């Protein structure tokens, strides 16, 4: 595997030195083993982002909340259908 990584010009040496440091010093250095994982944004996160960035209110009713409520109501409708 190392050979294959070197062939693809991946920074194997820096990975190996970072691993060595992590095994010796532990603590924060161990973070190199963490998976930099990014989750897909949820409905709640998107609703919050849109609410923060846009002011689409009309007569005190926010369009983002209105559509979000509509989606939730549609889900509830499906349960009863």
């Amino acid at each position, binding site marked *: 595997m190392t050979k294959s990584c070197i062939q693809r010009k991946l920074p194997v040496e820096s990975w190996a030195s970072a691993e060595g440091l992590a095994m010796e010093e532990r603590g924060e250095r161990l973070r190199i083993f963490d998976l930099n994982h*990014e989750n897909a944004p949820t*409905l709640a*996160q998107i609703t919050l982002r*849109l609410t923060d960035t846009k002011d689409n209110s009309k007569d005190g009713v926010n369009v983002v909340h209105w559509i979000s409520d509509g989606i*939730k*109501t*549609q889900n509830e409708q*499906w349960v009863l259908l």
Partner: protein
Amino acid sequence: MFFCQLRLRSLRSRLLLEISKLTQNPTDKQLLTVARMRARLGKQVKDFLKAASFFLPTLEETDLKAFEDESIDTPVEETVEPEEPVDGSLDEDFDYEDEDESESPCLLPEAVILPLPSNIISVKLKQSLESLILVEKELRKGQANDALEGLRIGLANKSLLLLTDVNRSTSTKQSTRAWASVRNAQSQILYHASGYQRAWQALKRIGTDGDLEIYQKLNQKDLVVVKDISMAKRFGQGSDSLAWFWRIGPSKDALTGEWMEECGLNFSYFVSPFSLIYFFSLPC
């Protein structure tokens, strides 16, 4: 907190099952639960329609069109039969005979087509609703992401239950409980699959081609258990591949290019079924 959400989803699935059983011999308690749900839904629909007047022009009945009914079910070979055998199709059984005669089906809150931008088919109106469409498109992506996450968890849960509880059960009592858990997981899977379908149908109407490349159509064959969990080391494992929603994320070029040079592994929107094994093995 996550387990609370999972429990809530599971309760909703159970409620769905209760509703589908109603026509057999509904108890007063069951009928009351449904009546309360319907009343609550009626209020939600009423509030939504009231607020719609702020954002939408007056709509004709022909301006709206509901999503096509594309029901999805567990693949036949993996279906777990309900605990109590049901005579005939549930859909055929379901009618409104026992309900108040003054209340016609078209007035039921669940039958109302909500004037969401994705339900508006009038070309003239659509042009004036650009900003609303953009908002709904983003929210539908969130709905799809939530549904896919639930679907992945449900499928991994079912796979693990088959591997552990069902396989290891040594008595009738244990086996009954194990299969009840599997049925519950199956209900959750169908609930999330249906949620994804609604989001996908909305994106099909208001989304771009790029959106539909990421969020693909969900097929019945995609709802299979993760055999790498339930049947590890099986014959033909090497040629098997997971459904598209397990591999949703950046292109191959992105993974082998800059991503790897950052001296770390980056996976975007990528969930391995094995990462969920550890999760489910944690004590409640």
